[in-house]
């Protein structure tokens, strides 16, 4: 922080803010994050997948390349024309993978967002109110946690039909159990700090206290947990589709691709390896980034 000499009376708020800049917390965090090589690798992988997904239509047209069957080109190996070869219907596997990335990432991210909204409300209420309310809410969450998430997702999809929207809701609800526990424990650890008491002492109202003093200081564990949850949910999308409960063929969903390729796995292992690697790489990348964020966001680990 440099200290240029300035005449204080004539300066406006904006000029002050310009003269004495805040140190950027984002930059501090970025420095810690970048120091972690694996986390950077994860971030690169995610960026590549996101870019491929965003420009999937530019790279390969959905209807003609990823969906339409082309019997002449069946079971081709990798070549310049078909980077990862073709499948049993002569469709380009690379095109299907990048269109699949769209589905996986979209459902993975959106389902976590859905779960996050519910978890924040549930976890913050339980943590802030405490007492009987906390007991009741957390027992319900305990019961939810006892049902394996994939079973719960299957149940929801089975009941409401297997659309993409239902998948997002199903996986989102399945995320609530673990996520709301994280939110609650974070809120609990902040709730009794003296700065929250100080806010009460100056007469601040409850919603303001919860949002600008408590939740703000819970952001770090919530972000980390969310990143890890995306990894899990990306895998769950594929698992559900593999079981035929999620996205149905001919959509180029990764789990779905593995399921259809199973019959030809012996002769053409690439049909399974390619989408398998895609699933593995995305979920690993999110896990790595999550770990990196944990270090970057935790003030205790600084220095």
């Amino acid at each position: 922080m440099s200290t240029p000499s300035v005449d204080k009376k004539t300066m406006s708020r904006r000029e002050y803010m310009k003269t004495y800049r805040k140190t950027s917390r984002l930059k501090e965090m970025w420095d810690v994050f970048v120091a972690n090589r694996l986390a950077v690798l994860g971030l690169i992988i995610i960026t590549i997948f996101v870019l491929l997904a965003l420009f999937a239509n530019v790279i390969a047209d959905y209807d003609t390349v990823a969906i339409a069957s082309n019997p002449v080109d069946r079971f081709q190996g990798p070549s310049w024309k078909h980077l990862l070869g073709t499948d049993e219907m002569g469709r380009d596997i690379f095109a299907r993978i990048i269109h699949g990335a769209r589905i996986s990432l979209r459902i993975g991210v959106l389902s976590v967002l859905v779960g996050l909204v519910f978890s924040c409300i549930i976890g913050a209420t339980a943590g802030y109110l405490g007492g009987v309310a906390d007991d009741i809410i957390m027992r319900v969450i305990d019961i939810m946690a006892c049902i394996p998430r994939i079973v719960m997702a299957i149940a929801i999809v089975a009941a409401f039909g297997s659309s993409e929207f239902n998948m997002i809701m199903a996986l989102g609800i399945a995320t609530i159990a673990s996520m709301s526990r994280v939110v609650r424990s974070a809120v609990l650890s902040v709730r009794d700090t003296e700065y929250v008491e100080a806010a009460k002492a100056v007469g601040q109202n409850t919603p303001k206290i919860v949002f600008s003093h408590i939740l703000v200081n819970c952001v770090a564990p919530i972000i980390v947990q969310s990143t890890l949850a995306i990894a899990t949910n990306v895998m769950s999308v594929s698992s559900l589709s593999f079981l035929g409960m999620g996205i149905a063929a001919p959509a180029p969903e990764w789990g779905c691709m593995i399921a259809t390729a199973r019959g030809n796995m012996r002769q053409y292992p690439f049909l399974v390896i390619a989408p398998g690697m895609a699933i593995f790489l995305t979920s690993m990348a999110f896990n790595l980034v999550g770990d990196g964020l944990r270090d970057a966001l935790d003030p205790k680990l600084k220095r």
Partner: protein
Amino acid sequence: MSDNVILEVNNLKKYFKTRSGMLHAVDDVSFTIERGKTLGIVGESGCGKTTTGRSILRLVEPTSGTVIFDGTDITKLSKRELRKKRQEMQLIFQDPFSSLNPKRTVCQTIEEVLKLTGEYKNSDERFHRVLEIMEMVGLDERLINAYPHEMDGGRRQRLGIGRALAMKPKFIVCDEPVSALDVSIQAQILNMLRSLQNELGLTYIFITHDLSVVNYISDDIAVMYLGRLIEKASTEELFRNPLHPYTKALLSALPVPSLHNRQKRILIKGEISSPIDPKPVCRFAARCDHCTEACLKGEPPLVEVSPNHFVSCFMVQPEQG
């Protein structure tokens, strides 16, 4: 009660329910403070001094008793009225590390309070008030956008004091405001609290375990032991003529940083007993050398043995005439 009394605490009690019984954190404490004065509350950990401070501000709900501040009974106020009244009564915390929101800069911390007063509608005016407050507590203006973790303990404590002063309170409860600081910084803060009191006409309750600090800053001192007020007198009187055996021991246990005028220590045996469901006897009896049968039969009342000197001990009799 005279106009000069700003705060009157009557029979304040705060009990906490625990698994093993009722914890008597504050048990039947009464005192008054005059406008512009400082009352020091001294005691060891677990004596209820912090809970007393919080109960007066109703940051914890008192179990019973009344707290009359400036003619209004705080304990009877609704939540909304209380929020208003709190503007006049503030709190300074012990730990400058945990009492500041780590995600808020100096400016944001003070400005939040200013917004609540509703006094400064114009953003630039409000901002200049922030600068004024920073100057008042000795924070350099270049720290305007600093986060708590970028400042040392002394500066953080200055910010904590600035946050309390932003409300323009009449009365501040200082809960061990200097015990987490180094001596040289501690002296800076004590001097500042003293001069702020003179400038702004503040009334303080100064809670501490450090007798030399309380001696420096207080006009009157109340000594607490296991939730009870056992002695209260003016600072000179208490240090010159302590009457309760515990006060005597406490004063003599204070390590004096000088090699001369040393007094012989009175060592008291044992440790503080449990505050859970205490028996209705003198709470200090088990550690007291002068314990008699009377002490084990009932609780000694707080009596005024000489003008403005209150003691709760069977062994001390009021002065005659």
